[in-house]
């Protein structure tokens, strides 16, 4: 059994995959909770992660789908970064291999968390180890040549769209990761649009001969997805877009479905309809890593019109649409824990009581 976890961190992303063989992959880490705000219902992500890791001090792969704050908040405080001593030592969690889109190496004029992670990505890329970069725009070769590095010497740590990540395979790990995006063109323009140059992958798990497919789509917009569908179908890789679990993009933003919100329900393009309505497997689970779905129209995601579409799809395939800040209840959200087994996925629904008391430390006694 493999375990996939999503965390209630508001409109932000973090997905931890624990494989049956003990290896772990973390997609994004955005610790958004305000520790000074008692009413903040977002979880203490660092604590949750450390609790899960227990004595482990390293994660096999940490992927930053892109460098927006809602995908990497406090990452530099929690993980050991090799490029600077101040990010080393203590109880920092080591990253064995970092996965980033090429844009995370190439972006310019950035600050804060993003700049620190770019520095780490560049450091690892220049040293040629502990990193995998997705897509190979010309600018990436240029970046290497400027540093007197032969681009051919880094080819082994670059993975193009339409291929598998070599860190994992079905035989050894029970999972394979197929990369759909970014394409090289996403990072070759003058201006890099982070959301659209983000990682978009399908993780295909296999347990007892049963494949369970998880799509991780970060914050890409509908045009990128449309293009992914077009290219994937063109190459006859339609199976790589089937899904049992779909981490719907951009916190249920309508812009990841269509240019227009729609009236009551967003209507996606033909290709996106194919992705959601035909590639979703029976009992499929749609996960919105977002705030609760508002009852009124809003500018920021999640958008109720997009949520209405996803809910309808979930209903049509006998599945469910789960919002991380509403699971299991809006008042008391908890991490969404999904078991991947021989019967597909299963959302863990553990009740509280004494089990909850044991799961945590007791208050101070005196």
């Amino acid at each position, binding site marked *: 059994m493999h375990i996939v976890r999503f965390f209630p961190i508001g409109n932000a992303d973090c997905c931890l995959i624990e494989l049956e063989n003990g290896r772990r992959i973390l997609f994004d880490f955005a610790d958004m909770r305000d520790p000074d705000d008692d009413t903040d219902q977002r979880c203490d992500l660092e604590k949750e992660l450390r609790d899960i890791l*227990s004595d482990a001090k390293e994660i096999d792969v940490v992927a930053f789908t892109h460098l927006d704050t809602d995908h990497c908040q406090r990452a530099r405080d929690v993980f050991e970064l090799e490029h600077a001593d101040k990010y080393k030592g203590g109880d920092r969690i080591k990253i064995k291999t970092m996965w980033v889109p090429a844009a995370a190496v190439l972006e310019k004029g950035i600050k804060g968390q993003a700049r620190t992670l770019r520095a780490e990505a560049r450091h690892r890329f220049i040293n040629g180890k502990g990193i995998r970069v997705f897509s190979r725009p010309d600018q990436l070769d240029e970046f290497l040549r400027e540093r007197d590095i032969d681009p051919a010497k880094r080819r082994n740590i670059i993975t193009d769209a339409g291929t598998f990540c070599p860190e994992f395979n079905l035989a050894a790990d029970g999972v394979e990761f197929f990369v759909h995006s970014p394409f090289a063109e996403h990072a070759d323009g003058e201006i890099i649009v982070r959301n659209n140059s983000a990682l978009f992958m399908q993780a295909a798990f296999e347990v007892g001969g*049963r494949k*369970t497919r998880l799509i991780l789509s970060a914050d890409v917009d509908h045009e990128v997805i449309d293009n992914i569908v077009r290219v994937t179908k063109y190459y006859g890789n339609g199976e790589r877009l089937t899904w*049992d679990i779909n981490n719907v993009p951009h916190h249920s933003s309508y812009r990841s479905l269509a240019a227009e919100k729609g009236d009551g329900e967003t209507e996606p393009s033909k290709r996106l309809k194919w992705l959601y309505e035909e590639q979703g*497997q*029976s*009992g*499929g*689970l749609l996960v919105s890593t977002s705030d609760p779905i508002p009852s009124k129209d809003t500018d920021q995601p999640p958008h109720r019109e997009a949520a209405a579409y996803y809910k309808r799809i979930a209903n049509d395939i*006998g*599945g*469910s649409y789960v919002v991380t800040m509403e699971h*299991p*209840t809006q008042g*008391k959200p*908890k991490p969404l824990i999904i*078991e991947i*087994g021989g*019967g*597909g*996925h*299963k*959302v*863990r*629904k553990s*009740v*509280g*009581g*004494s*089990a*909850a*008391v*044991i*799961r*945590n*430390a*007791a*208050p*101070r*006694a*005196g």
Partner: protein
Amino acid sequence: MSVGTEQDAPESVRAQELVAYLTAAADYPFAQLVSVKVANARDLVDLVVEPELAQDRVVPILNSEPIRLSFHHEDLCAPQVFSQRNNFPLELVHTTVDRGEHGRCLCIWEENWSDLRRNLTPQALVERIRDWFSRMARGALHQDGQPLEPLIPAASDTLVIPAGPPPTEWHLVYATQHQERWTVITEPQPHPNTPPGVPQFAIFPLRLPAQVHGALHARPYDLEGLRVLVDSMGGDLVRSFGDWFVGPDQLRASERRMFLLVSTPMLKAAGGNIEGWETWAFMPAESVRELGVRIGRTLYDAESGFLGPRIPPGSPDDLRGIKLFGWRVVQRLDRARARLLSGNNARGDSALVAIGAGAVGSNIVANTVRAGIGTWTIIDDDIVLPHNTVRQLQGNVAVGLPKAETSRRLVNQLLAEGAATDIRADVLAPGGQAEAVERAFAAADLVVDFSASPAVLGHLADHPAVKRGASMFFNPDGSDLVVLAEDGERALRLDEAEAQYFLAAAADPRLTGHLDAARLDLVRYANACQDLSRPLPPWQVQTLCGIGSGRLISVLADSGSLGLAWRLDPETSAVTTVAFELSGVRRIVFPRFRLTISEVLLAKMCKLRRGAAPNETGGVLIGSFDLRRGVIHVVDAVPAPPDSRQSPTYFIRGKKDLQPLVDGLTVRSAGTLGYIGEWHSHPDGAGVAPSRDDEGVWRHLREHIDPTGSPYLMVICAASETLIRAGWRPHEAAEGVVDHGRR
């Protein structure tokens, strides 16, 4: 809370507690209250449950299933569960075919209500229903190999003489001849079913004065030899024998052969009690008529056929000429003789009650009756079903008849002396048999629970009329037999022993796998529509019951408490004995519930406390509880997890490795034991009074556990005493102090 339009106040405590749980649980219970209605002495609680479901489902169960629970106001039966979904899948096992007024009834409960309600907290109730849907969805509800259930639910020549003193009348009831050897059976009463054509023999009984057992006499081979022997023992053979020949029966049926039966009571020493009877049987070669004439007491006219008294009597022939053939005499067994022959050293009968005449009860009762254990009152309200005959005393002829009665009948056929009576009753709800059950309990030296029902065990533990209780049961796969026995003073009651047994099952490596076949949500065996009675080889049953029978006799001879398991390896047939220590307990009686804590646990906390000094230490408590009886048993204290923080002024219990440890105990104890609270120590001089921090711990426990309906404890171990504070809704929290040095 999602509340519908109809919202009555439920009348049953169970429904009230369910509503409280659904509305106040600290963590989401994956069930939402919809409405509460009161109708026809029932509380109808509608809710939507959210089972844990895999994506692939054998049965199309939904992520949200609407159900209705129907609670009896007096809690007399298990809550009924109905699906409120119109399109709930049909033709499923464990559902009713017809959709009734409340929906399609779901067969959730497998145990009888008395067992089930012991631990059916509101949380457990909801969890059982959620689990039912989960298992239904994955097609795991009816297990492979599980037996199908009935559609309608459901009990040289040998003379055999009676046991004990010679009867006043002798009746020959049966005689057979095989290879020219006779076997003749006698009884004190005529037998109604004596077959026609059985050869008839006249019987002359002679009772001698009591004899002290001593040297063996030579066997007489003629009447004179017998006369001399009888004379030497103070009897008069010739006179009484002669008078017998002129009796009407002998004159009427004079062609018969006859037996001379000489019986004498046996003493170990002069003036002592009668220890037994010895009977000799002889048969002369002549008929009654011929013998009467030869000893001069009758006259016979062959021509007319007349036979009558000779007056005055004539002189007998030489008695040496009347040859006697000796017969082997076998006396049927009474209990005293059965004890003697079975090596049972008990000096007399014990009075016993058997609750349950199933696989364990019927066999052990029969085995011990053979050993002359005493008298049994067999109590059972069930009937014999065909599958019972594989493992029980009863056979095919008993199918459909009451288990108690058929056991009694079979058991009473084992010895010449009846050893059993029966009461057809459920001891937990005896109805019209209540008085009979009470009388049997009060009269018994030992009441043995063979029912495999924790509720019955608890009932015995609480029963004031019981002088001493014991319980014997198989583990779920029938490879192990367990015996628990109270001591003669009842210082340790059965339920307290049982709680410690579960700890042994969970923690003693010698009992590894003992309860592995148990399902966590069931209590031992169940007998309803999802009966999990497993295939159980009769040889296995007999082997273990045989051993258990022997131990039961030992239990009567020894007044100590006892905890034992015999583990049979079906592969090698080897049996291993595992004796587990039973600790004394301290009992605290609160106004609405009570609690026991084992001495071993108290000593363990004290030792951990001393070891951690000057720091405080602590951990979690392991125990069990019985909701219906309001009893908590605390059996173990888990030491501080390694990530705990300890100082002379505070203790923060960590969590590292704690959950798997507690889960392991729960799994290995078949779901019986679990987390029951927190303990921590106070340093010397601090006493047991809870600090402000301790009150914070208490609030934490109350917040998380109180709504679930489970009890929870905060225990503070100081130098000389331990404070126990317990919460258990809907009761008021209570606390008590245990002095370490004084019971």
